[in-house]
């Protein structure tokens, strides 16, 4: 459903909702996956992101998102200088991710406090984004709702157990997706919530011994 405020908005730093605002949101979501500003990042730009990204500030927007700046933050313009000043090692390169990848796609490999994440994300137009792969797991993450992501050993009843914890914490689920690379291997779970899940919900999930890793991501748009 189209909302009036989708049309009169968003408030953003120019020049392009797809190449600037969307790129910033991808950076913000990826930052959330490692729990803060990464010290190192390898940023590979594909398609139109590679061809016209520099002129659209796509590099600045992605770096700014990793630094925690939102799409309407004027510091995005100086994000590359800020990155250097803070001693962060972000490298940009052009690549072809795959022939059928969306034209505005990038792959980010980020590292913070020893934790590494590799993510493929696309900017779909009008600032909407989708992360399609995290550490090799196929995902579908839009950042339009507060989201819990976790990696767990594949075992029966895991979805019900986590849904139960969230119900106890009065967190309403919007969507829940499970993906795994192989049967019996680890599963990647993406849970979009109507309201921010809060630290206690996260801690309760983290206490499950079959959960290997959990992060809560703030909504970044929409």
């Amino acid at each position, binding site marked *: 459903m189209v909302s009036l*405020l989708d*049309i009169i908005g968003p408030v953003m730093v120019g020049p392009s*909702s797809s190449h600037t605002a969307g790129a910033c949101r991808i950076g913000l979501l990826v930052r959330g996956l490692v729990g803060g500003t990464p010290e190192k990042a390898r940023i590979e730009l594909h398609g139109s992101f590679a*061809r016209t990204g520099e*002129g*659209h500030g796509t590099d600045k927007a992605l770096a700014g998102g990793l630094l925690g700046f939102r799409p309407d933050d*004027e510091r995005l313009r100086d994000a590359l200088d800020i990155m250097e000043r803070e001693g962060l090692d972000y490298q940009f390169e052009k690549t072809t991710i795959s022939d059928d990848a969306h034209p505005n796609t990038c792959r980010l490999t980020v590292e913070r406090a020893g934790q590494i994440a590799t993510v493929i994300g696309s900017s779909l137009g009008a600032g909407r984004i989708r992360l399609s792969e995290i550490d090799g797991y196929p995902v579908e993450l839009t950042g339009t709702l507060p989201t819990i992501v976790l990696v767990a050993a594949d075992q029966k009843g895991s979805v019900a157990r986590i849904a139960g914890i969230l119900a106890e914490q009065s967190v309403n689920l919007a969507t829940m997706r499970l993906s795994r690379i192989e049967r019996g291997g680890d599963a990647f779970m993406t849970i979009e919530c109507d309201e921010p899940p809060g630290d206690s919900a996260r801690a309760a999930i983290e206490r499950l011994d079959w959960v290997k890793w959990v992060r809560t991501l703030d909504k970044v748009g929409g």
Partner: protein
Amino acid sequence: MYKSLADAIRDAEASGRTLSATALALESKDQGRTVEDIRSALRRALEVMRGAVERGLEGDLRSASGLVGGDALLVAKSSAGPMSNTLFSDVLARALAVQEVNAAMGVIVAAPTAGGAGVLPAVLTGLARNRGIGDEAVIDALATAGLIGAVVAERASLSGAEGGCQAETGAAAGMAAGAATEMLGGTPTQVGHAVSLTMQGTLGLVCDPLGGLVELPCVFRNATGSALALAGIEMALAGITFAIPVDEVIDVMGEIGRNMDVRYRET
């Protein structure tokens, strides 16, 4: 939101309300937010729009490529043209100003998109200043613009990559013309004619940015798009009725966009 402008106009006329009141009531129901909450988001949008106009008119910004910047101030200061120092030249300068801010990575409101972000602030804030219209009426006009944009998004497209520039600055011009027509006291039916009379002049407009950047001709398209909006407002308030229903004008824009060679739709 409405998927047909004809439906919205019919509901507004039947209830004796404006299109903005009709749109705000439906948005409130759709989104579960109060009308005041929606209007406060639109108020923030208006503040950002005004800020972008003022920032651009300072004249010192340059874009990434260096090709764009400083032209808003040229128009604002000029007395050489036949329309210098009129509402018309003021609206052109405001449209250029917002797009120069956009091209220089300044803060704008994407309405409907970043590439078409100059038209709506130029027409609405230019007219408001010229006519001494208060903010509450401009905020209502933004709601009407949002309604028109939502119908275009639903029936056609608001993306240059999908529909060419007619879907970005063309849609922006239609939104601005309709919104301003209501702000100046036009009826909901006249708002519909203003949208048609404006958008018919943008049909077939291609998206052909130099180097794929939102700079050339985008900055100037926002100025010429604003000029078309002023023409549409003038004709609609004079009482001209456009024989083709407004939803069909929007549908035709979508059809032309779908059939446009991909070379003429961005990058």
